[in-house]
């Protein structure tokens, strides 16, 4: 309501009530005096309080509504007139003030009429307009029992029954409307919050009292005029006092404003901010929220995060700014929103306190944040005093120590918690020796915690100083490295195992860098032993220096390839021992990462020198067998050609000569025949000898003894033989026979011996394991298998049966040839039938 309108309304009110006062003072009121005075007084009070409220709360319609009630109320004063028309008009309009009154009471305290209540106002308007009108039209004495009152000027019918019916209907309808308002107000009161009840309580009380009186009066008037009048007076008194109730609501605000001074005092006295504000605003449910600029969120006084403090339900939020910055929010009863000025004044008064509380809340929030970090950190944090007692610690300490719960750790000496009993004395001494400076230090300790688990902690401690520089506490941060230690140990075990394996295997292992230099500890035992290196000398040496010159290029390529991540296929190279001897090694180069992740090349190889030598020997042996076979074939062909073939050719010529001589010279023919017969006999001998040289039939049929006796008989040198009668597998007998035959042939050809001894024996120890052939002569010695004496062929033959041929032949000391030939085991072996048979024509000659 604008001031201008307010001024006009007040002026109108003065005018109306001045006129009413004139009426009251000039007329003889008689019985009406009391009623008129009450009505006048109530109207005046409504007008005055309405004007005050409108001026005080211009945005709230309550004041205007009260003013409207007061102004309309004045119309009732017309009943004081002696003039019948004016009196009747006053009566007809006397209840009209209930329309703005109903509006006022249902709108209080906001001044806004709820939509649902509009029909009530409309109904009241109809009742208070039509009701009195119907009375003045039917009853010549509208005010019951008023003898002094003028008669109705508008009466149309002076039927007493009709008049009574109209009055009763009016009373009933008015009572019904009043009852509707009554019920509505009761419900609203019950739904109100305490602060709202304090505001509306007095108003509702007076209103309800008046309504009860009116309802009762209306109903009683039909039976007792005096009682009705009494109730009407009671209602009027209540109505007249009602503005006082409205005023009290306004005075509450005034008192609250006065409470701001008390608020300042309370804050100065150290009363908690929330409590002081709750008192000042009259809202015990008040809550405070502080704005944490750092975290950009609302927190409570303890620094705990809050949801956005937006009004919910009966609450409203008022954000408080200080110095242009948002600092806090008041979460208060919604009714306080109607007292914006009060809330703002309170907030302004407490601005500094808000800022202080906000900073404290923010500090607490930061502290909680740090506390959360410290408690969730995996590191152990503990603070001990200068006596070594634990004064503060985080959650990780409880976990590592196995002492869950603050009381189990707090106040104990740290050595009782973290140091094993056996080491406590030493630790105590060490701690005391560090006093009073307790310099920063690092150490690692292993202990058995309260749960019986072994823990390893790496500690770092530092002193905490007070203002004077004295050490008051020692803070120690620790990292539980148990798992790391365990992994290190596992890794070390794996490494030791790998090293043990690498040192135990016969293969060579050398680890080189991308340039081929051997890395520290980069060779295994097998390599060091086989190549006569000391590890310390080998480190840094180029692997290529360990390879023979001819193989260096191949080795260089292999290392370079592996260094570029390409595993190399196996190759054979000659590696050099430290004293220059060559070993043939089959090796590969493989890219690997060492324990630090550095790219290395793993050279791994096996010594194949012996295998290569054996392969070479086998190749040579095969070549010799082929050569021996070829030579035997050539020898056989030459023997046939030079021997039997020649004799048969000569025989043919002799027979032809005989044929030509027979008719003319019988004597000569007979002579030729004799020569032919001699030639034929020699041819037969030679063929027989030849066949024996291929394979002596007697050996197959009768064994070693008889076969060798045949050789001995034909030998030009005396031979002594010592041969067992038992039979051996055919391959063994053949090999033994040819060893003896070749040896005897050599003796005859080269040894210039006078006697030979041949001995064949089984190394009989229950079961014959091998056959030994020994041929010993007393000749000149110096036999050498490499000079093609046939001994090399014997070596091949004996070795093909996994046997060994030994030759001792010192110059001038005779020759001793000894062949040891293993006898086949039943299931397998070199002398099985068909295995190790002699070459078909490799006979000695």
């Amino acid at each position, binding site marked *: 309501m604008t001031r201008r309108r307010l001024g006009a309304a007040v002026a109108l009110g003065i005018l109306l009530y001045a006129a009413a006062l004139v009426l009251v003072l000039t007329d003889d009121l008689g019985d009406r005096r009391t009623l008129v005075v009450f009505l006048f007084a109530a109207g005046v009070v409504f007008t005055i309080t309405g004007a005050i409220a409108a001026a005080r709360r211009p945005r709230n319609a309550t004041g205007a509504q009260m003013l409207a009630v007061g102004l309309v109320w004045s119309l009732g004063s017309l009943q004081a007139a002696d003039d019948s028309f004016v009196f009747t008009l006053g009566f007809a309009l006397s209840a009209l003030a209930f329309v703005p009154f109903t509006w006022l009471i249902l709108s209080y305290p906001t001044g806004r009429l709820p939509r649902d209540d509009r029909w009530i106002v409309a109904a009241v308007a109809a009742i208070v307009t039509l009701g009195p009108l119907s009375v003045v039209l039917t009853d010549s004495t509208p005010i019951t029992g008023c003898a002094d009152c003028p008669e109705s000027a508008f009466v149309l019918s002076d039927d007493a029954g009709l008049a009574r019916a109209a009055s009763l209907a009016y009373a009933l309808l008015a009572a019904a409307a009043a009852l509707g308002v009554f019920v509505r107000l009761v419900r609203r009161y019950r739904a109100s919050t305490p602060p709202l009840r304090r505001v509306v309580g007095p108003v509702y009380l007076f209103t309800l009292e008046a309504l009860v009186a009116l309802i009762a009066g209306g109903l009683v008037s039909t039976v007792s005029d005096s009682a009705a009048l009494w109730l009407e007076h009671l209602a009027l008194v209540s109505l007249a006092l009602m503005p006082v109730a409205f005023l009290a609501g306004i005075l509450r605000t005034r008192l609250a404003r006065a409470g701001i001074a008390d608020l300042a005092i309370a804050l100065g006295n150290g009363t908690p901010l929330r409590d002081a504000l709750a008192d000042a605003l009259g809202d015990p449910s008040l809550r405070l929220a502080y704005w944490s600029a750092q975290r950009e969120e609302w927190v409570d006084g303890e620094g705990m995060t809050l949801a956005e403090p937006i009004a919910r339900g009966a609450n409203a939020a008022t954000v408080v700014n200080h110095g242009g910055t948002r600092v806090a929010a008041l979460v208060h009863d919604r009714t306080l929103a109607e007292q914006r000025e009060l809330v703002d004044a309170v907030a302004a008064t407490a601005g500094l306190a808000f800022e202080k509380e906000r900073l404290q809340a923010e500090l607490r929030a930061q502290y909680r944040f740090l506390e959360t970090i410290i408690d969730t950190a995996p590191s152990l944090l503990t603070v001990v005093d200068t006596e070594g007692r634990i004064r503060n610690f985080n959650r990780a300490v409880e976990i590592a120590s196995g002492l869950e719960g603050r009381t189990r750790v707090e106040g104990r000496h740290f050595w009782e918690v973290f140091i094993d009993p056996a080491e406590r004395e030493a630790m105590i001494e060490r701690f005391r020796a560090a006093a009073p400076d307790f310099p920063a230090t690092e150490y690692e300790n292993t202990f058995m915690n309260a749960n019986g688990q072994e823990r390893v902690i790496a500690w770092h401690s530092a002193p905490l100083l007070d203002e004077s520089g004295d050490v008051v506490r020692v803070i120690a941060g620790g990292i539980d490295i148990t798992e790391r230690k365990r992994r290190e140990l596992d890794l070390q075990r794996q490494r030791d195992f790998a090293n043990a394996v690498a040192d135990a295997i016969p293969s060579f292992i050398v680890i080189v860098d991308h340039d081929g230099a051997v890395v520290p500890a980069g060779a295994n035992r097998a390599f060091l032993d086989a190549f006569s290196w000391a590890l310390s000398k080998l480190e840094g040496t180029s692997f290529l220096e360990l390879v023979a010159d001819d193989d260096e290029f191949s080795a260089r390529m292999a290392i370079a390839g592996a260094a570029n991540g390409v595993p190399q296929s196996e190759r054979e190279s000659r590696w050099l021992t430290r004293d220059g001897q060559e070993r043939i090694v089959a090796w590969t180069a493989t890219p690997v990462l060492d324990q630090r992740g550095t790219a290395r090349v793993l050279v791994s190889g096996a010594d194949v020198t012996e295998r290569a030598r054996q392969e070479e020997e086998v190749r040579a042996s095969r070549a010799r067998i082929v050569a021996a076979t070829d030579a035997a074939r050539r020898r056989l062909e030459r023997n046939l*050609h030079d021997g039997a073939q020649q004799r048969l*050719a000569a025989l043919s*010529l002799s027979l032809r000569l005989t044929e030509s001589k027979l008719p003319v010279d019988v004597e000569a023919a007979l002579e*030729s025949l004799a*020569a032919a017969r001699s030639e034929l006999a020699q041819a037969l001998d030679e063929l027989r000898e030849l066949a024996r040289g291929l394979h002596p039939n007697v050996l197959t049929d009768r064994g070693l003894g008889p076969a060798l006796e045949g050789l001995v008989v034909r030998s030009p040198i005396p031979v002594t033989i010592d041969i067992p009668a038992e039979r051996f597998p055919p391959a063994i007998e053949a090999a033994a026979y040819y060893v003896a035959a070749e040896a005897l042939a050599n003796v005859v050809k080269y040894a210039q011996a006078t006697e030979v001894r041949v001995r064949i024996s089984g190394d009989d120890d229950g079961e014959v394991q091998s056959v030994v052939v020994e041929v010993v002569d007393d000749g000149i010695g110096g036999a050498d298998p490499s000079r093609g004496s046939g001994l090399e062929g014997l070596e091949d033959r004996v070795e093909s049966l996994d046997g060994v041929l030994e030759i001792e032949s010192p110059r001038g000391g005779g020759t001793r040839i000894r062949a040891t030939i293993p006898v086949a085991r039943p299931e397998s072996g070199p002398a099985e039938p068909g295995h190790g048979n002699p070459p078909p024509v490799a006979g000695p000659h």
Partner: protein
Amino acid sequence: MTSATTILIVDDHPSFRRCARAILEADGFAVIGEADDGEGAISAIGSLQPEVVLLDVQLPDMDGFAVLSRLGEDAPSVVLVSSREASDYDGLISASGARGFISKADLSGAAVRSLLP
């Protein structure tokens, strides 16, 4: 009466030389000498100047082809003999300059004479 054709027998087997001498002499050849190896043959050819040489292919020191290669322009007619077949020596005989080849079992004066000019 025309004089008999002189012939030198070269073979390392005495029995064959003896039989060949008897056959050839019976068939009218004049066996003027024998040799048992290559060197001996070359020497005898030089000293005895035979008209025909019965030369064994396989001799201890060198074969008959080697002997032939060392004979000069005025070399006598050479007939090669062997206990092997002529096919064993393939083209060597025709390239050797010899008059021909006779298997030892087939030797006769007629066979030798058939190869001479």
